[in-house]
């Protein structure tokens, strides 16, 4: 997320912020967080001889939400998949011509999304009309807010992360909807964005903080900022990342390992 400024007043400018104010990376921070997590895992999971498959902790588990794919496709889930696909398209190409056609075509190249495609194609006309209306409104906002991400900010979408702990007995996993910025060379240089097509949820902040921890463990440097973008109204919630946020999140992970969920923040 470089020095050249984006157009003022938009989400890109908020994400970029003051380049000179970005914190230096404490070279011991990531190692310390990892060691702390390893201790927590050793105390809570490794001693349990029943566990054979890895214990997976993801944003949903952290936010006490139902696991992904736990139920049938619903209208909100379908809208989320379509919006996520359009978001990737806008960031990568800068354009969307026909939101529903483009989003369905984007989903259809991935066999894992066949059920969503089938759900959308089988929607009765009134429900389909409502979905198209919501999708077109979201596409308009996506084009406005994300259609001109500078390519030298190195935008990459749907970036998978997996952090193994205790020799792989525990996996901290996530997918970042958008990552901006060069790898760190000493200062925090990366910004993470999660895109939500639905309303705000109390778990959104938990997920953002968890994303910040994942990136810190993966890359050795914390992101300077984590954000949630709401395609419903184009709003943005942003957290600045500091040691306190990351330390608190390690505690959240420990609680998620113990009880499968974390308390509402």
């Amino acid at each position: 997320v470089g020095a050249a400024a984006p157009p003022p007043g938009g989400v890109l400018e908020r994400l970029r912020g003051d380049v000179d104010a970005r914190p230096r990376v404490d070279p011991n921070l990531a190692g310390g967080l990892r060691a702390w997590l390893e201790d927590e895992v050793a105390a809570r999971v490794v001693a349990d001889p029943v566990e054979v498959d890895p214990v997976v902790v993801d944003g949903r588990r952290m936010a006490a939400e139902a696991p992904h794919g736990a139920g049938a496709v619903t209208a909100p889930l379908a809208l989320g998949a379509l919006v996520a696909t359009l978001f990737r398209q806008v960031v990568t190409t800068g354009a969307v011509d026909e939101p529903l056609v483009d989003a369905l075509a984007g989903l259809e190249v991935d066999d894992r999304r066949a059920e969503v495609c089938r759900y959308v194609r089988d929607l009765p006309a009134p429900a389909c009309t409502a979905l198209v209306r919501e999708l077109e409104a979201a596409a308009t906002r996506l084009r406005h807010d994300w259609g001109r991400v500078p390519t030298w900010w190195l935008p990459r979408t749907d970036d998978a992360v997996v952090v193994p702990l205790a020799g792989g007995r525990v996996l901290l996993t996530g997918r970042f909807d958008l990552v901006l910025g060069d790898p760190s060379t000493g200062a925090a240089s990366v910004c993470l964005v999660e895109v939500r097509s639905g309303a705000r949820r109390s778990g959104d902040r938990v997920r953002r903080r968890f994303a910040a921890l994942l990136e810190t463990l993966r890359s050795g440097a914390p992101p300077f900022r984590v954000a949630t973008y709401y395609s419903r109204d184009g709003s943005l919630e942003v957290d600045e990342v500091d040691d306190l946020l990351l330390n608190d999140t390690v505690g959240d992970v420990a609680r998620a390992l113990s009880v499968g969920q974390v308390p509402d923040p």
Partner: protein
Amino acid sequence: VIDAPAPPAAPPPPVAVSPTVLPRARALTDALLAPAGPVVDEQCAHELRSRVAAAVAGHLPRGAGRRTVNAYALRRVRGSHPPSDSPFRWAPRTARRALGLAAVRACVAGDGRTPVEAVRRAVDEEVAVAERGAAGPRAVGTWLASLPAGGRAMVAAEAVTWATALFGALEWDRLGLRARIGGPDRWWDAPGGWGLTLQGRAEVRTESDGHPVLLCVGNGRPVDSSRVELLLPALVEVLHDPRAPAPSRVVGWWPASGRTLVVPVDARGLRETAEAVGRAATVVGPS
């Protein structure tokens, strides 16, 4: 068939590069450019040819069709990957490497392009070749040309993410002209009529002290089979041309987990990989 004695102890484990060292690109580039250390010689290469033949003899029926052992097959035989016999299909995940490598080559060539721009160009070029009728029916360009704009955008998005990770992973100016990004896979056909072919794949090839060094980009995180998976492309190089300088090490890098493993290419590791190839050959179906 060489009846070599069993090694007295387990081979040394791969060396992990600290996941907390910054900048990461410097640490990974250091791992590639480190001095070569001991390397296997031509005699060892000839022994390995016999060992691979011995490993498959008695397990594979002659004339049962050609079987290809690659890193995926080694993972399957170690149980680190769910078995799948579904035929290959182009998808964003299977196309990202080819498009991503083309993009990284363009970025490293210094034409000022970013990964996003370079991937867009790579996609356009593949489609143009296909539309001229110059691409084969199974080529990625033929598949891309068949996709509507939304599908093509998803393929590009996936390739951008992959390419950006690799582009940011190394200090390319230190590698200079020694670095070869992508390039064709290396193949070796086992003698003896077993119909066995080994496939070696690396994302970046460079050299140190006159010996090749390979960088392999993995998905997810290192697993039990990663060591032999990493040694497979080195084994293929040694078998393919025993007189050529042998690779001195293979560096595995998993961008999703930030993990790096450095595996020295030694005789014991290559023997272990040859035996893993023999086991895998009995698992994979004829191609």
